[in-house]
């Protein structure tokens, strides 16, 4: 029997030359059976090549095409030692110390093999859900305590209940795969590594709320995820897990991929729904909430990819099993993403309650540059900067809010001591200027003024007065913006100014550098 070798087709692995590794392997060892899996999430080791052995899969990484000949010569296929060898993949502490529920199969299976999916527990949740009444499905999700992973952390079961209660023939379920926050890539990895789990979660959701049509709105920056999701949908259709009267259950669910067009604001749900209607992605005033009147004015649920992908586990193992993980009202697990200047960047799925310090140091290994960490931006571009004194904080919705930080989509971006936090605050305003949908003045104009004011402060112009101007502007943006784009941009700005004033106030000559 030929040896099985796994080389990921995840975009991050491809970005480091995974395809060239496959070519080199194919020509040097034509007998090996190469499987393209998702990524295990240990991104600093990508391309991470795994060789299947009687004891499990043995990991080598990062492997370049040039390494292949040497690895084969050193007996890689017989799993001999080599400097790129890390032993059994599942015993690498980074991987072994996680609690992988949502990402259970990512990196393990061939993403587009439905039989692989089923062998590893896939479709169990849906099979169960198809025998349950909609209310029973919603109840199970409520028991799990699952909260939206898109940023706001709203309880998913309660949202679904509202949609279920609407007495309308046409309802919609939309997966938000706009993942625009810098430092986040979990949605992408899930769609590329285990697309069937998102589809399974959506069919369950469709049955629960009574929606027969679903959309996955994927940002155009993710061409690999778009391709994989489209193929996965075809496979599920052919197998009868999507379409009319699924497996004789009476549930009909048709699913479509829609591609964004480069607008961060389209991650905001009302903007996303406008975009799905073929319009400008302008934010809409609530109420009505989408669960009552959303896409084409019909009841619509918008959920983040990770919220929906958590549902198959909840149905198959029970809401209680999910709720056993986590801390307080932050139940279950969060796929955290370690990014920026970090030695071991990647995806870490852990129960809520893990500390930021454990993520950054035990998992992440500190900075890649070797310089000290100056600050971490948690929760994306609208999240505040956390200084090392606060790294003992537990990661959870409430525990982070208590320290003025935000969970967001679970991304942590690490900045080293070379970073000027005044520049980062300026960038936060600039990003808001570029990505504002333009609907309300505090955001549209405020961001431009904010950027200019920070520049003035950093040039040393009238610093006391301009800091006051900046604070006033932040107050205005926070209180008078229609959505969190304008409303939360002051978070990173203020947290930088408060904790690192010297980065703003430095002498004019310093700032001009």
């Amino acid at each position, binding site marked *: 029997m030929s040896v099985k070798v796994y080389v990921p087709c995840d*975009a*991050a692995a*491809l*970005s*480091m030359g995974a395809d060239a590794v496959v070519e080199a392997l194919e020509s040097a060892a034509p007998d090996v059976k190469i499987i393209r899996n998702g990524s295990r999430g240990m*991104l*600093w080791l*990508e391309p991470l090549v795994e060789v299947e052995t009687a004891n499990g899969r043995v990991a080598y990484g990062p492997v370049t095409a040039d390494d292949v000949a040497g690895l084969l010569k050193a007996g890689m296929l017989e799993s001999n030692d080599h400097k790129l060898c890390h032993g059994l993949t599942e015993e690498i502490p980074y991987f072994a110390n996680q609690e992988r529920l949502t990402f259970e199969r990512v990196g393990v299976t061939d993403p587009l093999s439905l039989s692989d999916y089923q062998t590893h527990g896939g479709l169990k949740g849906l099979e169960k859900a198809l025998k349950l009444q909609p209310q029973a499905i919603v109840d199970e999700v409520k028991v799990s305590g699952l909260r939206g992973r898109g940023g706001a952390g709203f309880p998913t079961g309660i949202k679904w209940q509202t949609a279920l209660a609407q007495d309308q023939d046409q309802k919609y379920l939309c997966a938000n795969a706009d*993942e*625009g*926050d*810098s*430092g*986040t*890539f979990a949605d*992408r990895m899930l769609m590329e590594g285990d697309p069937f789990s998102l589809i399974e979660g959506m069919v369950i959701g469709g049955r629960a709320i009574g929606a027969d049509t679903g959309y996955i709105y994927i940002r*155009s*920056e*993710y*061409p*690999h995820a778009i391709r994989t999701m489209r193929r996965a949908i075809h496979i599920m259709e052919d197998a009868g897990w999507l379409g009319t009267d699924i497996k004789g259950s009476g549930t009909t669910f048709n699913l479509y991929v*829609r*591609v*964004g*067009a*480069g*607008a*961060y604001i389209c991650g905001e749900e009302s903007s996303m729904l406008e*975009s*799905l*209607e*073929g*319009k*400008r*992605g*302008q934010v809409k005033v609530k109420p009505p909430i989408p669960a009552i009147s959303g896409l084409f004015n019909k009841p619509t649920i918008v959920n983040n990819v990770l919220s929906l992908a958590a549902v198959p586990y909840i149905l198959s193992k029970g809401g209680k099993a999910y709720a056993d993980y986590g801390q307080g009202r932050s139940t279950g697990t969060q796929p955290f*993403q*370690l*990014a*920026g*200047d*970090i030695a071991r*960047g*990647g995806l870490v799925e852990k129960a809520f309650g893990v500390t930021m310090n454990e993520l950054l140091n035990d998992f992440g290994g500190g900075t*890649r*540059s070797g310089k000290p960490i100056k600050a971490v*931006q948690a929760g994306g*571009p609208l999240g505040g900067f956390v200084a090392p004194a606060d790294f003992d904080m537990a990661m959870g919705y409430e525990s982070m809010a208590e320290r003025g930080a935000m969970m967001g989509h679970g*991304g942590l*971006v*690490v*900045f*080293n001591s070379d*970073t000027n936090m005044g520049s*980062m605050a300026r*960038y936060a305003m600039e*990003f808001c200027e*570029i*990505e504002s*949908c333009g609907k309300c003045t505090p955001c549209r104009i405020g961001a431009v003024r904010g950027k200019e004011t920070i520049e003035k402060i950093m040039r040393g112009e009238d610093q006391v007065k301009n800091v006051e101007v900046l604070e006033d502007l932040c107050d205005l943006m926070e209180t008078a913006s229609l959505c969190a784009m304008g409303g939360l941009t002051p978070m990173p700005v203020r947290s930088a100014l408060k904790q690192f004033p010297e980065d703003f106030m430095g002498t004019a000559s310093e700032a001009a550098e």
Partner: protein
Amino acid sequence: MATLLNTIEDAKARDICREHGDRPDELLEILHSVQEAQGYLTDGALRTIAHALNISRAEIHGVVSFYHDYKREKGAAQTIKICRAEACQAVGANDLISEAEKHFKTQLDGKSAGVALEATYCLGNCALGPAVMIDGELYGRVDMKRLLSISDNHKGREA
């Protein structure tokens, strides 16, 4: 010239609309497909799409101008998308951008006939920054040396 083009029916755009059932809610998909086929969105294409979907030209212009992806002019021979979002900044994206601007004698988001540099805000490769995308292919840990070799590599394939 513009007014002349304005009256031209774009057969390709018409076909693409038909493939999408002439549905206005599929406008973004239609614009993506037309742009992929023709490189950018011509006046003729927009006029044809507006007609096929039965929406006003003002509406379609509103949509095209809202989204960063849509281009109204012919692009450069090669466009390099460079991520300038936070996680890539944390590992030197700004330096990479300055060096690339100097090397290719162009500005980020400026015009260029040869190689154009386009700012992008996160490519989902934030643990392996600086990240870059060319022709839909993603690259990680990009420094200037690697950027030049990637760029040449793609030029070879485009030729």
